[in-house]
């Protein structure tokens, strides 16, 4: 059984095609990196996988069961790009308990899950704090804990390192690498993708235009350039980046 199977997935807004036929299989435990320019369809893809959007054509199957749009699927968790879009409760504890409570779990189970999620993300000391007063790195971890407490088998991270400083980014990378769930990470931070992903997908204009070993795909300068991307420096040690293009006046 695959963790995720997408079959001929299409999604369009009226007159605007976004996803144009995506076929994909992800094995349980795999860590997938998703790269591509803004507007390639990454967020739409995630919303289809989570059942927020109904595909206009094709299907989404999660651990052998179809994803029904509009239904609650606790087996998949989405970590939003901006943690403030995701954390809204008046305390860290309340926020992490939100998902488990909605799952209808008994109170002891909720408490146990919250405690474990806080421990995994190393934020137990923030328990009573208002999320609004935390640093960017702490908010990110609270958002992740809120997802983890639902014990999803697939976690999707949308630009997880955005607005993090290096310490927070490093601990995020550590966290993702240490977790055993199936993971999809979309990021413009290609060095991060290189560190966490087993396999990389290049999405552009609603299609997967390349997939394979991260070092191979991201090391392919011609391919990367053709889709508005740049080879990460760590794969490209000798030639220095072109200095900025001459600016037109």
């Amino acid at each position, binding site marked *: 059984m695959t963790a995720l199977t997408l079959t001929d997935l299409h999604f369009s807004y009226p007159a605007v095609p976004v996803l144009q036929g995506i076929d994909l299989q992800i094995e349980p435990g795999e860590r997938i990196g998703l790269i591509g320019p803004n507007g390639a369809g990454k967020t739409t893809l995630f919303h289809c996988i989570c059942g927020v959007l109904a595909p206009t054509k094709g299907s989404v199957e999660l651990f052998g069961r179809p994803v029904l749009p509009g239904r609650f699927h606790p087996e998949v968790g989405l970590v939003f790009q901006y943690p403030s879009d995701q954390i809204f409760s*008046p*305390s860290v504890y309340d926020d992490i308990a939100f998902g488990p409570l909605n799952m209808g779990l008994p109170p002891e189970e909720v408490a146990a899950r919250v405690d474990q999620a806080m421990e995994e993300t190393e934020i137990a000391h923030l328990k009573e704090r*208002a999320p*609004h*007063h935390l640093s960017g790195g702490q908010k990110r971890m609270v958002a992740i804990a809120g997802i983890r407490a639902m014990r999803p088998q697939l976690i999707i991270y949308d630009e997880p390192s955005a607005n993090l400083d290096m310490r927070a980014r490093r601990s995020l990378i550590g966290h993702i690498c240490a977790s055993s769930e199936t993971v999809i990470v979309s990021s413009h931070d290609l060095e991060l993708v290189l560190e966490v992903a087993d396999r990389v997908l290049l999405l552009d204009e609603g299609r997967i235009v390349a997939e394979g070993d991260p070092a191979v795909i991201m090391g392919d300068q011609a391919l990367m350039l053709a889709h508005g991307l740049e080879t990460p420096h760590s794969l490209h040690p000798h030639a220095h980046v072109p200095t900025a293009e001459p600016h037109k006046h």
Partner: protein
Amino acid sequence: MHIPDGLLPNAIMIGTNVAAVGVTAFALARIDKNEQRTLVPKASLLTAAFFIISALRIPMPPPLNSVHLLLVALMGATLGWLTFPALIVGLMLQALVFGHGGLSTLGANTLMLGIPALGVHFLFQWARSRQLSGRPLGVLSFVGGFLGVVIAVLLFYGTVIGTLPAEINVELERQATGLLALSHLPIALIEGIFMVLIVAYLHRVQPALLNLHPKQVK
């Protein structure tokens, strides 16, 4: 719940507009000019947020099916006197951009929501002076939220029914107004509970929001 164009007789239409403009001018004059500027973005973005929140439908049992929050109490508690300029701006945008409410009845609609909001503002000022928190603040919030709706509803139906031709039986008018107000009791209850919870939320997360009151011109 908006009084539409065309409904009000001359005297009421002119009177409410003059009164609303007067109260707004008074509200702005109480704030010194520099302070006004710092308050403009706050009041504007909060007005936008109130606008969005008030459009949210909260599910209810039939026959109501869903209700909208009126938010008058919350506006009063956060914006104080600025509720009047905020209401004029919000209602103007509502009339112009979305075609709800009316232009000639801007004053009446502003007063209908602004009067209870201002009442709640005074209630909260008193609470601040007593440094209320916890349960007493909760009780006060509930009373504010509940009465905010009741007063606004009474003003609305009072205006609508009271301004209709005098040939209607006075006793009937009074009964109809009371009955209609009574039918809004569930909404007032919801708004009261909402007010308790949101005041607790803001108190914890961003107390400055409950204390936006500008310095007054001496």
